[in-house]
């Protein structure tokens, strides 16, 4: 992989931007997903409808459309994500797009975790004399955690792979780095091969981790 040494700046910035996008996107998706999940289980009908509409809209439209909308569509309105730097705007648009899109999937998982606990268990815990906090701490949260963490890990892996879409609006992440190197050197096999390996370095440990978590939670269940 000599090409990595020839263009270390491009590949390293690319890797760093991919990692940044993945982390920011994941945090954002968790926040968005939790809020939408709470909307979906709330007793107020309009909030519930809003939650359903959000999830269905984002799950049935491509991420690329959202990225273009956030960058060009909002750009036409003069909205630049509170920065004057163009690359900053693009990066923030991409991160927001990742968070909004994957948030819809996160919301479904968290909702499943919240609704998955049998009411009888909570009643049983309370009748055994556990306080509300104790019930939450020893009965509800461990089970919700067990039901949601492995699927959330899977969404995280999907998110890492989907950061490659940010290259289409001009974020110089890994795939864009490969494009640049390829157009400078015409050594497409090496450029894309290097990026392929870097993606594997990111996703394979992540999926091994998720598999390990899954097995651990299954045994504990």
């Amino acid at each position, binding site marked *: 992989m000599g090409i990595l040494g020839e263009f270390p700046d491009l590949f390293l910035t690319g890797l760093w931007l991919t990692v940044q996008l993945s982390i920011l996107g994941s945090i954002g998706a968790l926040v968005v997903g939790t809020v939408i999940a709470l909307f979906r289980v709330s007793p107020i009908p309009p909030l519930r409808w809003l939650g359903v509409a959000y999830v*269905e*809209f984002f*799950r*049935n*439209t*491509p*991420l*690329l*459309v*959202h990225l*273009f*909308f956030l960058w*060009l*569509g*909002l*750009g*036409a*309105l*003069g909205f630049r994500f509170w920065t004057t730097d163009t690359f900053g705007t693009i990066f923030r648009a991409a991160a927001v797009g990742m968070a909004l899109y*994957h948030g819809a*999937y996160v919301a479904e*998982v968290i909702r499943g975790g919240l609704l998955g606990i049998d009411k009888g268990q909570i009643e049983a815990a309370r009748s055994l004399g556990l306080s509300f906090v104790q019930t939450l701490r020893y009965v509800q949260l461990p089970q919700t955690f067990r039901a949601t963490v*492995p*699927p959330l890990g*899977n*969404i995280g*892996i*999907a*998110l890492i*792979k*989907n*950061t*490659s*879409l940010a*290259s*289409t609006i001009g974020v110089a992440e890994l*795939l864009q780095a*490969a*494009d640049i190197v*390829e157009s400078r050197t015409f050594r*497409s*096999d090496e450029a*894309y091969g290097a*990026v*392929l390996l870097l*993606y*594997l370095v990111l*996703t*394979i440990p992540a*999926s091994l981790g*998720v598999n390990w978590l*899954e097995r651990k939670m299954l045994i504990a269940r």
Partner: protein
Amino acid sequence: MSPFDAISAAVCGTPGIRCDTWHLFVDPTIIRFFGEGLRETLMLSVAAVLLSFAAGMLFALGRLSTRAWIRWPSILYIETIRALPVLLLIVYLHIKGTTIFRPIMSPFFGEDFDLPLFWAGVLGLSLYTSAVLAEIIRAGIQALPRGQTEAASALGLSYVQSMRFVILPQALRLMVPAMMGQLTTVIKDTSLVSTIGVFELIRQGRVIYTQYFNPLEVFLYVAVIYFVICFALSQASRRLEIRAPLEAKVKIQEIQLRDQVA
């Protein structure tokens, strides 16, 4: 003043919202233009799904094979492809497709054979989707009780016969909702093919907004088109909910979350 007038009066002053281009989206020529994009999108997804179903079936059976020299290459293929972004595969096939396929295709199409962009896109999508479908089919086969295979071989059916007449008909029936879900994902994934220059929905949208400078309206419009199709499909697949063993459902949900989100 009608509610519509009130909305336009409030909104149209905002810079960036071009109310003078709204008539475009009911203009027959423009609708036809988007219709051509939609046709390309649907053709891409149908071609990709058919190709990847055939390939996915082979890789699923390969991964379940008892022969190590078939099993390990299948596992390697499936796991590597599932760890990569689709866009990387599409872009790479766009650049290298002609070099790879010219030696194979030149006897049929002549020495100057170029891999059409459409097929570069289909192959890129299929490479990825076949690995995902292979995992879904494998989950379906593994969800069947072992007794089915054993009974089939006890009745004297060969491997091919038991697969053809006993295992696959049952496994595929379990998989129908998951496969329809996959079709939805493939339709969304075809949006990535716009990056290599196939004129599907998004690319058509980009042509329109570079002409009329109205990206906001165009992408809303395109999003609605995608939504209508994908929503109808996903609702239909939800209706088809077939009783599958819980373990298979959990496994498929995992595959869907990791690989269908795109």
